[in-house]
Protein backbone atom coordinates (compact mmCIF):
# COMPACT_ATOMS: atom_id res chain seq x y z
CA UNK A 1 0.00 0.00 0.00
CA UNK A 2 1.21 3.50 -0.84
CA UNK A 3 2.51 5.55 2.04
CA UNK A 4 -0.02 8.35 1.76
CA UNK A 5 -2.95 5.95 1.60
CA UNK A 6 -1.70 4.07 4.61
CA UNK A 7 -1.43 7.30 6.57
CA UNK A 8 -5.00 8.15 5.60
CA UNK A 9 -6.20 4.71 6.64
CA UNK A 10 -4.50 5.02 10.02
CA UNK A 11 -5.94 8.48 10.57
CA UNK A 12 -9.41 7.01 10.04
CA UNK A 13 -8.62 4.06 12.31
CA UNK A 14 -7.26 6.35 15.03
CA UNK A 15 -10.15 8.81 14.98
CA UNK A 16 -12.49 6.92 17.37
CA UNK A 17 -9.59 6.48 19.80
CA UNK A 18 -8.86 10.22 19.67
CA UNK A 19 -12.52 10.97 20.41
CA UNK A 20 -12.50 8.57 23.37
CA UNK A 21 -9.31 10.04 24.81
CA UNK A 22 -10.75 13.53 24.29
CA UNK A 23 -13.94 12.69 26.19
CA UNK A 24 -11.92 11.21 29.04
CA UNK A 25 -9.46 14.09 29.29
CA UNK A 26 -12.22 16.71 29.20
CA UNK A 27 -14.02 14.89 32.01
CA UNK A 28 -17.08 14.24 29.87
CA UNK A 29 -16.63 10.50 30.25
CA UNK A 30 -15.40 8.40 33.15
CA UNK A 31 -12.93 5.61 32.43
CA UNK A 32 -15.75 3.13 33.05
CA UNK A 33 -17.84 4.80 30.35
CA UNK A 34 -15.18 3.95 27.76
CA UNK A 35 -15.07 0.20 28.34
CA UNK A 36 -17.80 -0.40 25.79
CA UNK A 37 -16.68 1.90 22.99
CA UNK A 38 -13.04 0.75 23.11
CA UNK A 39 -13.80 -2.96 23.50
CA UNK A 40 -16.46 -2.98 20.82
CA UNK A 41 -14.20 -1.11 18.41
CA UNK A 42 -11.54 -3.75 18.95
CA UNK A 43 -14.01 -6.57 18.28
CA UNK A 44 -15.39 -4.81 15.21
CA UNK A 45 -11.93 -4.33 13.72
CA UNK A 46 -11.13 -7.95 14.47
CA UNK A 47 -14.29 -9.02 12.64
CA UNK A 48 -13.39 -6.73 9.72
CA UNK A 49 -9.94 -8.32 9.56
CA UNK A 50 -11.44 -11.82 9.62
CA UNK A 51 -14.16 -11.34 7.02
CA UNK A 52 -12.34 -10.82 3.68
CA UNK A 53 -10.54 -14.18 3.84
CA UNK A 54 -13.59 -16.43 3.79
CA UNK A 55 -15.44 -14.03 1.49
CA UNK A 56 -12.64 -14.14 -1.07
CA UNK A 57 -12.67 -17.91 -0.86
CA UNK A 58 -16.40 -18.01 -1.35
CA UNK A 59 -16.77 -15.51 -4.18
CA UNK A 60 -13.34 -15.64 -5.74
CA UNK A 61 -11.06 -12.65 -5.72
CA UNK A 62 -12.47 -9.41 -7.07
CA UNK A 63 -11.22 -5.83 -6.86
CA UNK A 64 -13.18 -5.03 -3.75
CA UNK A 65 -12.09 -8.09 -1.82
CA UNK A 66 -8.49 -7.69 -3.00
CA UNK A 67 -8.42 -4.14 -1.66
CA UNK A 68 -9.96 -5.34 1.59
CA UNK A 69 -7.39 -8.14 1.87
CA UNK A 70 -4.63 -5.63 1.22
CA UNK A 71 -5.53 -3.62 4.32
CA UNK A 72 -6.37 -6.61 6.48
CA UNK A 73 -3.16 -6.57 8.48
CA UNK A 74 -3.73 -2.90 9.31
CA UNK A 75 -7.22 -3.73 10.59
CA UNK A 76 -5.83 -6.50 12.76
CA UNK A 77 -3.12 -4.31 14.26
CA UNK A 78 -5.70 -1.58 14.89
CA UNK A 79 -7.92 -4.14 16.66
CA UNK A 80 -4.99 -4.90 18.95
CA UNK A 81 -4.43 -1.18 19.43
CA UNK A 82 -7.99 -0.73 20.65
CA UNK A 83 -7.58 -3.72 22.94
CA UNK A 84 -4.53 -2.02 24.47
CA UNK A 85 -6.54 1.19 24.83
CA UNK A 86 -9.26 -0.90 26.52
CA UNK A 87 -6.62 -2.17 28.95
CA UNK A 88 -5.36 1.36 29.61
CA UNK A 89 -8.94 2.42 30.37
CA UNK A 90 -9.22 -0.54 32.75
CA UNK A 91 -6.05 0.60 34.53
CA UNK A 92 -7.45 4.14 34.83
CA UNK A 93 -10.74 2.78 36.18
CA UNK A 94 -9.17 0.44 38.74
CA UNK A 95 -6.41 2.88 39.75
CA UNK A 96 -4.46 0.25 41.68
CA UNK A 97 -2.48 -2.66 40.28
CA UNK A 98 -3.41 -4.70 43.35
CA UNK A 99 -7.11 -4.22 42.57
CA UNK A 100 -6.53 -5.35 38.99
CA UNK A 101 -4.66 -8.44 40.15
CA UNK A 102 -7.40 -9.19 42.68
CA UNK A 103 -9.88 -9.39 39.80
CA UNK A 104 -7.80 -11.85 37.78
CA UNK A 105 -9.65 -14.99 38.98
CA UNK A 106 -13.01 -13.62 37.79
CA UNK A 107 -13.90 -15.37 34.49
CA UNK A 108 -15.10 -12.13 32.92
CA UNK A 109 -11.66 -10.64 33.55
CA UNK A 110 -9.19 -13.42 32.73
CA UNK A 111 -10.94 -14.12 29.45
CA UNK A 112 -10.14 -10.51 28.53
CA UNK A 113 -6.48 -10.89 29.48
CA UNK A 114 -6.14 -14.09 27.46
CA UNK A 115 -7.87 -12.49 24.49
CA UNK A 116 -5.34 -9.65 24.62
CA UNK A 117 -2.42 -12.10 24.86
CA UNK A 118 -3.77 -14.12 21.94
CA UNK A 119 -4.02 -10.92 19.88
CA UNK A 120 -0.59 -9.68 20.90
CA UNK A 121 1.27 -12.44 19.05
CA UNK A 122 -0.30 -11.92 15.59
CA UNK A 123 -0.01 -8.15 16.09
CA UNK A 124 3.66 -8.39 17.03
CA UNK A 125 4.56 -10.34 13.86
CA UNK A 126 2.42 -8.29 11.51
CA UNK A 127 5.26 -6.52 9.69
CA UNK A 128 6.71 -7.64 6.36
CA UNK A 129 10.06 -8.88 7.65
CA UNK A 130 8.40 -11.16 10.21
CA UNK A 131 6.08 -12.44 7.50
CA UNK A 132 9.02 -13.34 5.26
CA UNK A 133 11.06 -14.89 8.00
CA UNK A 134 8.28 -17.00 9.48
CA UNK A 135 7.07 -18.35 6.14
CA UNK A 136 4.24 -20.81 6.58
CA UNK A 137 4.35 -20.53 10.34
CA UNK A 138 3.27 -16.90 10.00
CA UNK A 139 -0.21 -17.94 8.86
CA UNK A 140 -0.47 -20.47 11.66
CA UNK A 141 0.41 -17.86 14.26
CA UNK A 142 -2.06 -15.39 12.74
CA UNK A 143 -4.79 -17.95 13.44
CA UNK A 144 -4.45 -17.08 17.11
CA UNK A 145 -6.97 -14.40 16.21
CA UNK A 146 -9.71 -17.06 16.28
CA UNK A 147 -9.31 -17.93 19.97
CA UNK A 148 -8.80 -14.20 20.59
CA UNK A 149 -12.16 -13.42 18.97
CA UNK A 150 -13.93 -16.17 20.89
CA UNK A 151 -12.36 -15.14 24.19
CA UNK A 152 -13.34 -11.53 23.52
CA UNK A 153 -16.94 -12.54 23.02
CA UNK A 154 -16.94 -14.65 26.19
CA UNK A 155 -15.31 -11.75 28.09
CA UNK A 156 -18.10 -9.49 26.84
CA UNK A 157 -20.90 -11.92 27.69
CA UNK A 158 -19.61 -12.66 31.17
CA UNK A 159 -19.43 -8.99 32.09
CA UNK A 160 -22.62 -7.85 30.45
CA UNK A 161 -24.93 -10.83 30.26
CA UNK A 162 -26.46 -9.24 27.17
CA UNK A 163 -26.35 -11.75 24.33
CA UNK A 164 -27.74 -9.55 21.57
CA UNK A 165 -24.84 -7.14 20.90
CA UNK A 166 -22.15 -9.81 21.21
CA UNK A 167 -23.94 -12.18 18.86
CA UNK A 168 -24.54 -9.42 16.31
CA UNK A 169 -20.75 -9.15 16.04
CA UNK A 170 -20.31 -12.90 15.68
CA UNK A 171 -23.06 -13.32 13.06
CA UNK A 172 -21.20 -11.92 10.00
CA UNK A 173 -18.27 -14.21 10.73
CA UNK A 174 -20.45 -17.27 11.00
CA UNK A 175 -22.19 -16.36 7.73
CA UNK A 176 -18.84 -15.80 5.96
CA UNK A 177 -17.49 -19.11 7.25
CA UNK A 178 -20.59 -20.94 6.12
CA UNK A 179 -20.32 -19.30 2.69
CA UNK A 180 -16.71 -20.38 2.42
CA UNK A 181 -17.60 -23.89 3.44
CA UNK A 182 -20.49 -24.30 1.00
CA UNK A 183 -19.25 -22.33 -2.02
CA UNK A 184 -15.68 -23.51 -1.90
CA UNK A 185 -16.78 -27.10 -2.22
CA UNK A 186 -18.85 -26.26 -5.26
CA UNK A 187 -15.91 -24.66 -7.07
CA UNK A 188 -13.26 -27.13 -6.02
CA UNK A 189 -11.04 -24.35 -4.83
CA UNK A 190 -8.31 -26.36 -3.23
CA UNK A 191 -6.00 -23.56 -2.22
CA UNK A 192 -7.16 -20.40 -0.60
CA UNK A 193 -5.70 -17.12 -1.77
CA UNK A 194 -6.59 -15.57 1.55
Amino acid at each position, binding site marked *: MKGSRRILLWLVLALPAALMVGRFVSGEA*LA*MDLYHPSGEMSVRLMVLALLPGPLADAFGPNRFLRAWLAIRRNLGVAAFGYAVLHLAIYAF*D*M*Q*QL*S*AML*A*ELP*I*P*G*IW*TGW*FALLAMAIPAAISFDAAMRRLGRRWK*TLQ*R*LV*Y*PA*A*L*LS*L*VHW*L*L*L*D*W*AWGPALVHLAPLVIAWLLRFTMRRGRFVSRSIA
Partner: protein
Amino acid sequence: MTFPRSARFCALGLAALALGLGAPAQADGDVTCNAGPQSGWAKMSKLKKKAWLEEWKLLKMQVEGDCYEVYARTKEGQSIEAFFHPVTLKKLVVFRRGQEIYRAEGFTG
Protein backbone atom coordinates in the same frame (compact mmCIF):
# COMPACT_ATOMS: atom_id res chain seq x y z
CA MET B 1 -8.56 -37.13 8.08
CA THR B 2 -6.29 -34.72 9.87
CA PHE B 3 -7.43 -31.58 11.51
CA PRO B 4 -5.76 -28.35 10.44
CA ARG B 5 -4.23 -26.24 13.12
CA SER B 6 -7.02 -23.70 12.79
CA ALA B 7 -9.49 -26.36 13.86
CA ARG B 8 -7.40 -27.04 16.92
CA PHE B 9 -7.30 -23.34 17.76
CA CYS B 10 -11.06 -23.23 17.38
CA ALA B 11 -11.44 -26.21 19.67
CA LEU B 12 -9.31 -24.38 22.22
CA GLY B 13 -11.55 -21.33 21.92
CA LEU B 14 -14.70 -23.41 22.25
CA ALA B 15 -13.28 -25.07 25.34
CA ALA B 16 -12.71 -21.63 26.83
CA LEU B 17 -16.24 -20.69 25.83
CA ALA B 18 -17.67 -23.75 27.56
CA LEU B 19 -15.56 -23.05 30.63
CA GLY B 20 -16.66 -19.44 30.76
CA LEU B 21 -20.32 -20.16 30.28
CA GLY B 22 -20.13 -23.00 32.78
CA ALA B 23 -20.05 -20.30 35.46
CA PRO B 24 -23.48 -19.79 36.99
CA ALA B 25 -25.55 -17.32 35.04
CA GLN B 26 -26.01 -14.01 36.75
CA ALA B 27 -27.83 -11.37 34.83
CA ASP B 28 -27.24 -7.81 35.83
CA GLY B 29 -28.86 -6.42 32.72
CA ASP B 30 -32.39 -7.23 33.77
CA VAL B 31 -32.72 -6.55 37.48
CA THR B 32 -36.28 -5.52 38.31
CA CYS B 33 -37.21 -3.74 41.51
CA ASN B 34 -41.02 -3.56 41.17
CA ALA B 35 -40.72 0.05 42.21
CA GLY B 36 -44.00 1.40 40.86
CA PRO B 37 -44.41 4.84 39.31
CA GLN B 38 -41.45 7.22 39.41
CA SER B 39 -43.54 9.81 41.25
CA GLY B 40 -43.27 7.68 44.38
CA TRP B 41 -39.49 7.29 44.21
CA ALA B 42 -37.05 8.77 46.69
CA LYS B 43 -34.48 11.24 45.37
CA MET B 44 -31.52 9.52 43.75
CA SER B 45 -29.14 11.90 45.53
CA LYS B 46 -30.05 10.17 48.80
CA LEU B 47 -27.98 7.24 47.59
CA LYS B 48 -24.86 9.32 48.21
CA LYS B 49 -25.29 8.84 51.93
CA LYS B 50 -25.92 5.12 51.42
CA ALA B 51 -22.69 4.82 49.49
CA TRP B 52 -20.86 6.79 52.16
CA LEU B 53 -22.19 4.46 54.87
CA GLU B 54 -20.90 1.48 52.85
CA GLU B 55 -17.51 3.24 52.64
CA TRP B 56 -17.74 3.21 48.85
CA LYS B 57 -16.28 5.78 46.51
CA LEU B 58 -19.23 6.73 44.35
CA LEU B 59 -18.48 6.85 40.62
CA LYS B 60 -21.89 7.13 39.01
CA MET B 61 -25.61 6.89 39.79
CA GLN B 62 -28.35 6.19 37.26
CA VAL B 63 -31.81 4.78 36.72
CA GLU B 64 -31.61 1.27 35.27
CA GLY B 65 -35.01 -0.17 34.38
CA ASP B 66 -37.05 0.50 37.50
CA CYS B 67 -34.07 0.43 39.83
CA TYR B 68 -31.42 2.85 40.99
CA GLU B 69 -27.99 1.68 39.99
CA VAL B 70 -24.77 2.81 41.61
CA TYR B 71 -21.27 2.30 40.24
CA ALA B 72 -18.68 2.52 42.96
CA ARG B 73 -15.36 1.35 44.30
CA THR B 74 -15.17 -0.32 47.68
CA LYS B 75 -12.50 0.66 50.16
CA GLU B 76 -10.61 -2.49 49.10
CA GLY B 77 -10.56 -1.09 45.56
CA GLN B 78 -13.13 -3.50 44.12
CA SER B 79 -15.18 -2.17 41.25
CA ILE B 80 -18.88 -2.82 41.93
CA GLU B 81 -22.35 -2.18 40.58
CA ALA B 82 -25.14 -2.02 43.17
CA PHE B 83 -28.89 -1.92 42.66
CA PHE B 84 -31.11 -0.08 45.13
CA HIS B 85 -34.87 -0.01 45.47
CA PRO B 86 -35.94 3.49 44.37
CA VAL B 87 -38.68 3.80 47.01
CA THR B 88 -37.12 2.21 50.09
CA LEU B 89 -33.48 2.76 48.97
CA LYS B 90 -32.74 -0.74 50.19
CA LYS B 91 -29.61 -2.35 48.79
CA LEU B 92 -30.94 -5.25 46.73
CA VAL B 93 -28.11 -6.78 44.77
CA VAL B 94 -24.43 -6.07 44.12
CA PHE B 95 -22.35 -7.26 41.19
CA ARG B 96 -18.61 -7.31 40.77
CA ARG B 97 -17.46 -7.69 37.16
CA GLY B 98 -20.55 -9.67 36.20
CA GLN B 99 -20.55 -11.80 39.35
CA GLU B 100 -23.17 -11.45 42.03
CA ILE B 101 -21.51 -10.79 45.38
CA TYR B 102 -24.50 -9.70 47.45
CA ARG B 103 -28.24 -10.25 47.34
CA ALA B 104 -30.73 -8.98 49.90
CA GLU B 105 -32.62 -11.74 51.65
CA GLY B 106 -35.81 -12.58 49.79
CA PHE B 107 -35.00 -10.42 46.76
CA THR B 108 -35.64 -12.28 43.53
CA GLY B 109 -35.84 -9.46 40.95
